[in-house]
């Protein structure tokens, strides 16, 4: 198989996996839907960066109350991903990191930059 075809296959697999994870997040989570863009940016970064660390068996900071909140949401997400998507078990840590970074890009797009919600940029609550 040519390199181009291999790359296309990898991307196609990656897209399919991101779609599955996005569907889970949209249907089961709430942390991604805070009311303003700045808040969603914090939330997506906080939860998904910790999810990435947990999936890669890395140390996760949870000393501050806010970190603990991100951690509990991330842990819940990690468990759901591992239970629902068996392909995680076959992935190495570097591939997982790339996948979750791509997932974060997608969630940022759906909930922030591409969102049709006009209230996201309102300055006051």
């Amino acid at each position, binding site marked *: 198989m040519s390199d181009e075809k291999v790359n296309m296959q990898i991307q196609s697999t990656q897209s399919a996996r991101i779609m599955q994870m996005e569907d889970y997040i*949209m*249907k*089961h989570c*709430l*942390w991604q*839907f*805070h*009311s303003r863009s700045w*808040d969603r940016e914090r939330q997506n970064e906080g939860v998904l960066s910790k999810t990435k660390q947990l999936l890669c068996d890395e140390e996760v900071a949870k000393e501050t*109350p*806010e970190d*603990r*909140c991100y*951690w*509990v*949401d991330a*842990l*819940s997400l990690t468990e759901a991903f591992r239970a629902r998507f068996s392909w995680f078990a076959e992935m190495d840590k570097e591939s997982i990191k790339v996948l979750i970074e791509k997932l974060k890009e997608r969630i940022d*797009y*759906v*909930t922030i930059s*591409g*969102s*049709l*919600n*006009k*209230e996201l940029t309102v300055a006051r*609550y």
Partner: protein
Amino acid sequence: MPHHEFECSSCIPERKSHAVVKGEGEDLTSCLPEGHLLTIPGTISERGCAYCGAKHVIGTPMKDAIHMSHGPVGCTYDTWHTKRYISDNDNFQLKYTYATDMKESHVVFGGGDLLKKNIIEAFKAHPTINRMTVYQTCASALIGDDMEAIARDVLKEMPDKDIFVCNSPGFAGPSQSGGHHKINIAWIHEKVGTVEPKITSDYVINYVGDYNIQGDCEIMCDYFKRMGIQVLSSFTGNGSYDELRSMHGAHLNVLECARSAEYICNELRVKYGIPRLDIDGFGFEPLSDSLMKVARFFGLEDRAQAIIDEETARWKPELDWYKKRLTGVKVCLWPGGSKLWHWANVIHEEMGVEVVSLYTKFGHQGDMEKGVARAQPGTLAIDDPNELEGIEAMDKLKPDVIFTGMRPGEVAKKRRVQYLNAHAYHNGPYKGYEGWVRFARDIYNAAFSPIHQLSGIDISRDPIATDKGFMTRKMISDVKLIPEEANVEGERPYTGDFDCVTKLRGKVYDPELSRNHEQAAV
């Protein structure tokens, strides 16, 4: 954008952007209705006003305060007969309704003296109640009665009392949501931090955004207490005025109803550094996940798991009995507020119910985002619908049941669509494991009620069979099941008590659970 135009609203082109059909592959970047805008003139909205949002939704579930409306008596319409936010102090706030009863003469000459007289009279009539919330209405706002000054004046005479003034007249926002906003912000700025909390546990939360509909809040607080967690305040279902003044003492805000209470949680985060954790209290899996998340925050995972295991073992066989029978039942999810997204996916996953439409009367686009994200493809999502649009949607979608409020519910009945009260519930609570089964039972009773057959008969014209008896619900619902599916050992219809809330009151919890021994040892 997959907008949906109602035939009945074709003369109002602006309405088209307020309804969408979620197509295959659609997401929030292509499919979201307009929302949280002033109602378009001529559409005859069914929304409530900002005063209604502040008083009837957020304020009045607070149980140990007199809730006084400064305005015409008609503004107090939504009280004990329409609201079911019960409380464990004999429903004081539901039984007694107060209004200053403004008349034309007060509008002309001012209503300040009238308000002062009413506040003092009400406090004297209830000498054990020392707290009051006074709500502005359109009438008192338009003439500019200085309610804060009057409250200060009263407190000079009655220094043991406390009064909260809520300036949220009917016109203060596009809908009742504007009132949610105003009372949340006013409460945090004026009242939070004015009473020091009595801390009885090493694990302390505010439970925010539950209004104790038929006991929902008490069910959830029971789970928290079983884990040793102190619920410092419940905002505002079954909540106490002074506990709500001490919200700053919690370690964590557990948020249930996003838009109505998001404001106060965010302000508590900014002002006091208390983080916010959003949870779902409806459905076995979301609730289990939520309890575990709160537990993990404090390091109490084992206790949460014990509750999840015990409750699931007790109630899952009953949920399964209903799921088999409810699979494929079509519903319109028209609750008005947060249940739009609390229920959109989980009733599909855990009861097999197909949600064909969802709407919100006053929700923000953020609320609709959650609903659309959780809905199945093909769902019609409507912002701020009116009665004609509701009827057109029912005729087109042909749901078996709609979950909505009393007024659209009565309209639905006349179209021979069964209605389940999504605001006040039929036989709630619906939160908690047992509550979720009660909800399934209510859907089952609605969807398979034999009254469907009878209601379609025109007794002035149609022949009525005299040789057949009435069918039961089970005869209708089980006809699609093979015997092996219908009769699984252990599965059964709801077997709980008629009242599953009162027994929780006065329940004693082990005080040792409130202590963090690891922390003490350090």
